[in-house]
């Protein structure tokens, strides 16, 4: 009795103040996120399992049962060792359906709000002794240290502070499922404090009371033997039952469930805790026997109860403060979390079920304050239970009453995970039977002090004389399991329950149905939900769900709307529990009545299978491998493919179709055919309505270009086990169509060419005659006027001859044979010839041409082929030019070659087309005017000459127009003579 009440108050308040500062530091962002979200923090937070009973109760149990106290630690360690098969499936479910408590989970699986209420009431009844135990340890510790007559009042003060803390940091958002970083950090800090304190106490015991490990072992082998004689090693059956109880506690206790599943943590973190938490518990367990033996050696076990031997290790106030802080850290964290978890359960499964929320504007605030009031009520309830009941019992009795009560939910939980055949009637019947036995055998005697009412069934007389907790556990659990199995097998299971059972079952993949919804858009959702939640809350919830799913509010795909409905239900479940959420969603977002037969949502099933892949084994994994292979084959098929379900909903849209249409599959899968963007909705409707299976070369306008698509259709007949629908293949036959057209065009051009060559030949003869006659006229007269006329006639006939020879040459140019020897060609001359040909055309008469080519610059090449190049480039420039524009052709020596530029002042080339200009059939001209073959021909001729071609549109030195630059290697002779500049003398 070294401390005063005021001193204790300061010590306790100081510790809680440190927690407060820690929470504030996390909230304000003073602690880096990587530390707050580190898996070690989570593991330490899970250490909340080690409540005040781990500090004091374990000592009490160790003094009577020896290593029997280890059951408390090993039970929960076993549950975490099984994390991959036990905890991870529960975590997946709680996360998918936003289930924040055991009541949520049971209500969701067994499709009844009353199941949630029942689990909540049981949790409350079972947890009260555990809460009272925490308060009792505080009260006892205060009494031990101060000798105060009324330690309960100081304990009440601490309870109020703890409640305030839980209200401030645990219930700031009405949503249960949001992660509370500050709360997690505080719980982790508490675990660190109690671990540090326990290890320090163990150090004091080992090196302060004993002189090290050797001295301890010596004492144990010698004088200590007398002290250990009273220890009654638990019977193996008792031990296994204890292990089972503590194993169940790890899954069922509201505060452990909350920290394990409700705080949104990754699967990886949970798996890491599978070894880290047992390690933490090992470190917590080691000090227990050391403190006990040290206390026994000092003889303090005769003065104070075994539970509080840590206070007797030394007279130093520091050692006692250490023992007190260890207990306070454990008790406060446990109380906070129990209050937080239970308040959520009571709110969702008792208050909201009795009084459903109406369309009030401040729903979030209303829920928040209700939770805060419930937190205070739960902690106050714990204190009252301690005052009325706890003081009359030891810690072990209180703890066992709590753990046996909660263990009644274990058969239901295991059935929920592993037995889809279990139903509500079976689970409730089993649970009620188990709970009644527990109430009569442990809880009521605890409350009233009456002798336990334990009925040993015939045939189990072997249990006579065993401890009450053991008999109650065995009888209640056996009855619970038996009734669950028998009633489940004997009674009918509803459709809803069957679906929920599949959703919860470890091996099942959910197979949702495709049913049409009454609401058609996200806006409709807001409007419908507004009637239940108020416009503001409905709008926020719908937007949140849309945001979670990455959907647009305007998305009207039936698939997207179904996902939105599911998401909203899950989010509302996090807010108000699954029962109320399901009621609201069923009532305000109903499916259409008579909306046609429901079929399975294949796309959703596939996306779930993708997510489950790593969990599949054996045959399922092989089958999934096959499924993926076939899926990939269809997705990567180089032909467009889409599939419709029997109800007209789009189920598949492959990569080739995405490339062709520019519409990603994710944005259209799940929509109706008629909601597809034009022209696809209409086009697919045409083939679906067509009695034939094919539609050939349907013209479609895509990005301003005409394409021709061929569609094929196949019907999938529905049978008992297989879904029906329609598969459509879409092939792009544009190139084939163009090629066909071009072939016809080319044949026509070839005949015109032959005709032109014949006409040219025929014209050639009279022209030669006219030229000769003009020549004769010059010799026959001296009249200057006649001489000038003869000159003009000769010039004009020369011009006609050149044109005719160019025309013949051009007609022959198409029959170029590669490998023919190149000759020096003057591009100035080639350009002149090309201009002559261009002038023959009637169009573009208002466009002027400036041939600024240096006649002295020669390239090595085929003059006829280069003529074709220039004709094509100049005719393109002419077609692009407006009346009055000028086309300039210039040359310059560059990089041992000749740079020929053709620059126009036309409208330029569209950026989208520019990259494809040299591909066949790419044209910017109106349909019927351009073949799309000119520039590919130019490219191929320039490439034959070892040159290159570039396009600038617009050119750097003018605001509009296009410049085509050809680079051709210089004539080698000339190259040797004048590599850079033209020689003016040549």
């Amino acid at each position: 009795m070294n401390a005063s009440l005021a001193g204790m108050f300061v010590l306790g308040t100081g510790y809680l103040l440190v927690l407060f500062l820690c929470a504030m530091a996390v909230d304000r962002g003073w602690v880096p996120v990587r530390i707050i979200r580190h898996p070690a923090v989570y593991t330490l937070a899970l250490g909340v399992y080690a409540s005040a009973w781990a500090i004091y109760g374990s000592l009490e149990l160790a003094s009577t049962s020896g290593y029997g106290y280890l059951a408390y630690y090993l039970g929960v360690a076993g549950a975490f060792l099984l994390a991959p098969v036990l905890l991870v499936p529960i975590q997946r479910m709680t996360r998918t359906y936003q289930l924040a408590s055991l009541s949520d989970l049971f209500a969701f699986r067994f499709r009844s709000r009353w199941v949630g209420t029942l689990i909540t009431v049981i949790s409350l009844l079972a947890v009260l002794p555990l809460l009272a135990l925490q308060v009792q340890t505080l009260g006892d510790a205060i009494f031990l240290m101060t000798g105060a007559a009324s330690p309960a009042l100081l304990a009440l003060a601490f309870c109020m502070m703890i409640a305030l803390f839980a209200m401030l940091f645990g219930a700031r958002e009405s949503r249960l499922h949001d992660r509370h970083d500050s709360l997690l950090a505080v719980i982790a800090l508490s675990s660190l404090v109690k671990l540090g304190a326990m290890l320090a106490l163990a150090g004091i015991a080992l090196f302060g009371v004993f002189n090290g490990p050797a001295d301890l072992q010596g004492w144990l082998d010698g004088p200590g033997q007398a002290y250990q004689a009273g220890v009654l090693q638990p019977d193996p059956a008792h031990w296994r039952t204890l292990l089972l109880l503590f194993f169940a506690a790890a899954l069922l206790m509201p505060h452990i469930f909350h920290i394990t599943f409700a705080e949104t943590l990754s699967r990886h973190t949970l798996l890491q805790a599978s070894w880290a938490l047992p390690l933490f518990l090992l470190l917590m367990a080691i000090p227990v026997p050391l403190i006990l033996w040290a206390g026994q050696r000092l003889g303090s076990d005769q003065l104070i109860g075994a539970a509080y031997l840590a206070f007797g290790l030394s007279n130093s106030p520091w050692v006692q403060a250490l023992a007190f802080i260890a207990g306070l850290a454990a008790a406060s964290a446990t109380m906070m979390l129990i209050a937080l978890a239970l308040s959520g359960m009571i709110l969702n499964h008792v208050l909201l079920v009795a009084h459903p929320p109406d369309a009030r504007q401040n729903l979030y605030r209303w829920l928040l304050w209700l939770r805060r009031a419930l937190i205070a009520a739960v902690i106050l309830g714990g204190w009252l239970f301690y005052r009325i009941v706890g003081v009359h019992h030891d810690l072990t009795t209180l703890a066992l009453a709590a753990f046996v009560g909660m263990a009644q939910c274990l058969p239901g939980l295991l059935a929920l995970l592993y037995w889809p055949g279990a139903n509500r009637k079976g689970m409730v019947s089993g649970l009620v039977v188990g709970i009644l036995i527990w109430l009569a055998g442990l809880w009521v005697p605890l409350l009233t002090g009456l002798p336990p009412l334990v009925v040993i069934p015939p045939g189990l007389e072997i249990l006579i004389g065993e401890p009450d907790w053991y008999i109650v556990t065995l009888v209640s659990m056996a009855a619970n399991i038996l009734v669950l199995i028998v009633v489940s097998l004997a009674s009918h299971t509803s459709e809803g329950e069957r679906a929920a059972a599949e959703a919860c079952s470890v091996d099942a993949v959910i197979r949702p149905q495709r049913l049409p919804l009454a609401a058609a858009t996200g806006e409709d959702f807001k409007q419908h939900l507004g009637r239940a939640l108020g416009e503001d809350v409905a709008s926020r919830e719908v937007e949140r769900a849309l945001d979670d799913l990455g959907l647009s509010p305007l998305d009207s795909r039936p698939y997207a709307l179904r996902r939105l409905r599911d998401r909203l239900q899950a989010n509302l479940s996090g807010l108000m529990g699954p029962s109320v959420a399901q009621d609201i969603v069923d009532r305000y977002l109903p499916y259409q009545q008579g909306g046609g037969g429901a079929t399975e949502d294949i796309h959703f099933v596939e996306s779930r299978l993708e997510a489950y892949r790593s969990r599949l084994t054996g045959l399922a994994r092989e089958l999934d491998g096959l499924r993926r292979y076939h899926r990939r084959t269809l997705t990567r098929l180089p032909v467009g493919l889409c599939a419709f379900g029997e109800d007209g909903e789009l189920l598949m849209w492959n990569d080739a179709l995405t490339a062709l249409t520019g519409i990603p599959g994710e944005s259209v899968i799940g929509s109706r055919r008629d909601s597809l963007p034009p022209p696809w909705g209409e086009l697919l409707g045409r083939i679906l309505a067509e009695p034939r299976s094919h539609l050939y070369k349907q013209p479609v306008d895509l990005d301003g270009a005409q394409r021709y698509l061929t569609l094929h259709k196949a019907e999938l007949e529905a049978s008992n086990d297989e879904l029906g629908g329609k598969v459509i293949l879409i092939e792009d036959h544009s190139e084939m169509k163009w090629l066909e057209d071009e072939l016809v065009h080319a044949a026509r051009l070839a005949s015109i060419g032959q005709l032109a060559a014949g006409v040219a030949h025929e014209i050639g003869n009279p022209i030669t005659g006219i030229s000769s006659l003009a020549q004769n006229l010059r010799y026959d007269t001296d009249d200057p006027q006649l001489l000038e006329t003869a000159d003009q006639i000769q010039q004009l006939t020369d011009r006609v001859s050149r044109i005719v020879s160019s025309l013949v040459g051009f007609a022959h140019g198409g029959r170029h044979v590669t490998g023919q020897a190149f000759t020096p060609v003057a591009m100035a001359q080639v350009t002149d010839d090309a201009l002559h040909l261009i002038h023959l055309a009637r169009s573009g008469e208002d466009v002027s041409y400036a041939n600024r080519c240096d006649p002295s610059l020669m390239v090595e090449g085929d003059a006829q082929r280069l003529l074709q190049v220039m004709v094509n480039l100049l005719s393109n420039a002419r077609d692009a030019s407006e009346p009055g524009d000028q086309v300039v052709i210039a040359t310059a020596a560059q990089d041992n070659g000749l740079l020929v530029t053709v620059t126009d002042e036309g409208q330029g080339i569209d950026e989208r087309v520019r990259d494809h200009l040299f591909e066949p059939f790419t044209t910017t001209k109106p349909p019927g005017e351009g073949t799309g073959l000119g520039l590919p021909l130019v490219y191929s001729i320039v490439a034959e000459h070892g040159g290159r071609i570039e396009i600038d549109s617009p050119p750097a030195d003018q605001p509009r127009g296009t410049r085509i630059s050809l680079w051709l290697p210089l004539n080698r002779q000339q190259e040797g003579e004048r590599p850079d500049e033209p020689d003016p003398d040549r």
Partner: protein
Amino acid sequence: MYVYRIMLFLVLGGYLLSPLLMSGWATPGVAWYRPFLIWGVLIALTLWLEQKRKLDER
């Protein structure tokens, strides 16, 4: 997944054999820390299986 089965086997085996742990309480000649040593080995084994599972899932 096969790792999970090993874990299941380990935990069930541990559950059945665990009463042996208690026999060492203050028995002369038996180190007091023996149960903790066995527990430590179990944790190390779980850690090793966890690493193996992570490699499996990669």
